[in-house]
């Protein structure tokens, strides 16, 4: 890797790390298009490096968010078997499906999510209570106001389904899947936005491990590229949480909807780039 490319990768990774750690994403959906379309790196190499980047982003962001009490660890760990299974299934399906078709389908899902999130207000209530969900009830201290925020988690089954789908996305596209998990937790499960993004950051490390481990033992992770991505992402993931420390959940939702739209545009570009370039 020459110097110019290295700098490009570091900057892209740092940016992905910042955005990812702010919004509960792994950064993969930013890293892959930038590496492949922007820097001309091979898709197979990009996917391996991206998964490593997602683990870095998750580890960096979550170490901070967990210590701040924002992460609903129990909820995350209940959803993880679903995302891990989804990731394995997704990887298998990817063998039989065209990458650019997958990218387009997911882009459509993201646009739908964006409008849904933008228009529906956040509803943190004590609605239908599944008895199991009582163990997932949590609270955190809002750093902006200094208040304690309590919430009940609901609709666990829908959450598990969404987690499985997020895992699929991870296995098929080499991303973290956070872009699906955050809306699912926030809109369906009643998790306040700041807790949803933090919990998503926490979870995606495990989602990415399934894919990363398989690639690693098969020698498919390009070492120098992955290491550079990881270091850049770690840097970004340590900056991101500081940037949104005092942002209100409501504002985060609006920003998140914009991020969703931007990323679906990126995915459409990627899909077109794949058909055009291949």
């Amino acid at each position, binding site marked *: 890797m020459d110097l110019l490319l290295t700098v490009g990768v570091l900057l892209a990774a740092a940016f992905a790390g910042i955005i990812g750690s702010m919004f509960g994403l792994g950064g993969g959906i930013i890293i892959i298009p930038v590496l492949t379309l922007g820097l001309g790196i091979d898709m197979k190499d990009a996917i391996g490096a991206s998964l490593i980047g997602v683990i870095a982003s998750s580890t960096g962001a979550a170490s901070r968010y967990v210590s701040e009490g924002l992460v609903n660890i129990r909820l995350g760990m209940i959803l993880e078997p679903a995302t891990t299974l989804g990731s394995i299934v997704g990887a298998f399906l990817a063998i039989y499906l065209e990458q650019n078709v997958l990218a387009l389908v997911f882009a459509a899902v993201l646009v739908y999510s964006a409008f849904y999130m933008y228009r529906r207000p956040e509803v943190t209530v004590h609605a239908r209570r599944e008895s199991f969900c009582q163990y997932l009830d949590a609270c955190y201290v809002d750093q902006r106001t200094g208040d304690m925020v309590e919430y009940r988690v609901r609709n666990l089954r829908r959450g598990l389904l969404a987690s499985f789908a997020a895992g699929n996305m991870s296995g098929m596209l080499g991303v973290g899947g956070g872009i699906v998990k955050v809306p699912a937790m926030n809109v369906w499960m009643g998790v306040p936005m700041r807790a949803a993004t933090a919990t998503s950051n926490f979870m995606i490390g*495990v989602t990415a491990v399934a894919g990363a481990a398989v690639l690693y033992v098969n020698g498919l992770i390009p070492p*120098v590229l992955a290491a550079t991505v990881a270091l850049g992402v770690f840097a970004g993931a340590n900056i991101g949480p500081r940037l949104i420390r005092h942002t209100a959940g409501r504002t985060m939702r609006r920003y998140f909807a914009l991020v969703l739209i931007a990323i679906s545009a990126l995915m459409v570009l990627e899909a077109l780039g794949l058909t055009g370039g291949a």
Partner: protein
Amino acid sequence: MEQDRRLDRYVSGVLHAGMILSISVLALGLLMFVLSPGVETSIPLDRLPEELMHLSPVAVIDLGILLLILTPLARVLAAAAIFAAQRELRFVLASLAVLAAIALAIVL
């Protein structure tokens, strides 16, 4: 509602340690690589210890990547241990399910 601070502290500690460890090894490996560049292909796991003894830069980088991959798994284990100690069996089961799924993925 009481926050489960003990769980938070342990999990955050494991993640932080994993982060510091992998950053250090990755940075060291990349530095070594810059000083003596070589072929950029990854080293198979069974050859890794041998290559590390020979101070191969790519081997150090590969070790860093391995440590990074192991960090979330270490987190799952640490959390499982605390759940077991607190008799929260559902979460112990969930943790074991995740580890089993990942082991399955590698084997397949």
